[in-house]
């Protein structure tokens, strides 16, 4: 399960999510599928559920979506905007 870190400031436009972390004071911009995933992480979300949702929305093969999501979530965790939860 993953969720947004509570101390991240964020705003969204029609195409992207723009984030600012209190720790790094850097701005991170997500667009496309990454922006959708960010929206979905406003509460704890399981990677399996995210994969299922994205497969339905984009009619894409599960393994590809899972690989993309795992990579994205790793990068969001490294950037300090998302954290894994038990």
């Amino acid at each position, binding site marked *: 399960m993953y969720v947004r870190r*509570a*101390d*991240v*400031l*964020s*705003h*969204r*436009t*029609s*195409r*992207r999510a*723009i*984030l*600012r972390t*209190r720790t790094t*004071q850097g*701005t991170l*911009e997500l667009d496309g599928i990454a922006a959708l995933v960010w929206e979905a992480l406003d509460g704890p979300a399981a990677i399996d559920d995210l994969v299922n949702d994205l497969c339905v929305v984009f009619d894409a093969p599960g393994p590809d979506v899972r690989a993309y999501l795992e990579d994205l979530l790793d990068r969001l965790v490294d950037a300090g905007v998302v954290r894994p939860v038990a």
Partner: protein
Amino acid sequence: MREPARRSLHPFVAAVAAYGLPTRSSAIRKPLDDIAWIDVLRVFRRERLAALLDRSIAEGAVPATDRQREEAENEAAQGARGVLRVEEILLDVGRALEAERVEFRVLKGAAVARLDEADPSLRQYADVDLLVRGSEIGRAVSILGSLGFHRDLPERRVGYDHRFGKEVSLRSTMGLEIDLHRTLVLGYFGLTLPLVELWRRSTTFELAGTSLAALDHESRFVHACHTAMLGDPRPRLLALRDLAVIAHAHTLDEDRVRELAPTGRGAAVVQAAVRTAVDVLDLAMHDTLPLPAVSGTPVTERLALRAYRAQGGSNTLELLSGALAVRGRDRITYLGSLVRPSPEYRSARRRAGRPREWSTALEELAAAAAGRARRGDHDG
């Protein structure tokens, strides 16, 4: 009281400014041509409505070409980056004031975004506005000094800020601005505002996991009305939207609105603001917007209203209108502060390239009188 006519507002701008609110307007069918688009984009940038434009287009509330859609999104993103920087400052400032036990309320953009808009991203803003008690203004200024924020001008005269001032503006070297308000508007309406009532109730909102205090719904509504009708030469669309959004999001207690804007001390301002918002944004909200009954506005309030820029007055006249609100020796002290500010204040104004107050006021008055005479000719 002079209110702007709706006919001057482009229907596309009105539709976007009223996005998400009940309106009487009919749908716009065709995208704007390139020339009209450039004009309205300038308006949205100036009025800080780019996020609403982007969302209105994305949700199909107004039509747009692919290029217009992209430009609107870019404008919204640029505004959002600015808001994030301001929010970061708000968190730092809130933490610093709280650590020193200075009570405050978050005003305007940040509060309306989190408490009243359906999505906080729709309300963009460029500075931090906080309400602080007059007795705490000095301490708050020195706390924010330690965060790199310094006054743009020194105090007009010793004691002015905590007794009569509207706000102290502070700026950082990065150009970010914090306005520490003692009251909500300049002059008569700021000085007669029932501050005890304003502080009596509050609410909170969450920002990045931090809880911040804001005014209660009715106080935010009255503040938006004052900002709309008294703040600028023409009511800003953002302020008109704010008051409508607040009334749309909550059931407002009309008795509480009357306590905050009683007859003679702001009821006429609220009434004019509500009517202007309904007219300019073409709202279908007669049942939800509190419209205080104003019968026989006292002479003092009518006189004071004329002093405000939205009514054809000037900044200096707004300040002078405050003399109608103070009595006895306070009035002498107040007028003394206006007419003979401290030498430090005057030289700081000169250094900052600010116009001379009284000669500018006379020019503004002459221009306003000429405008009034011209209008009289046309009306006649």
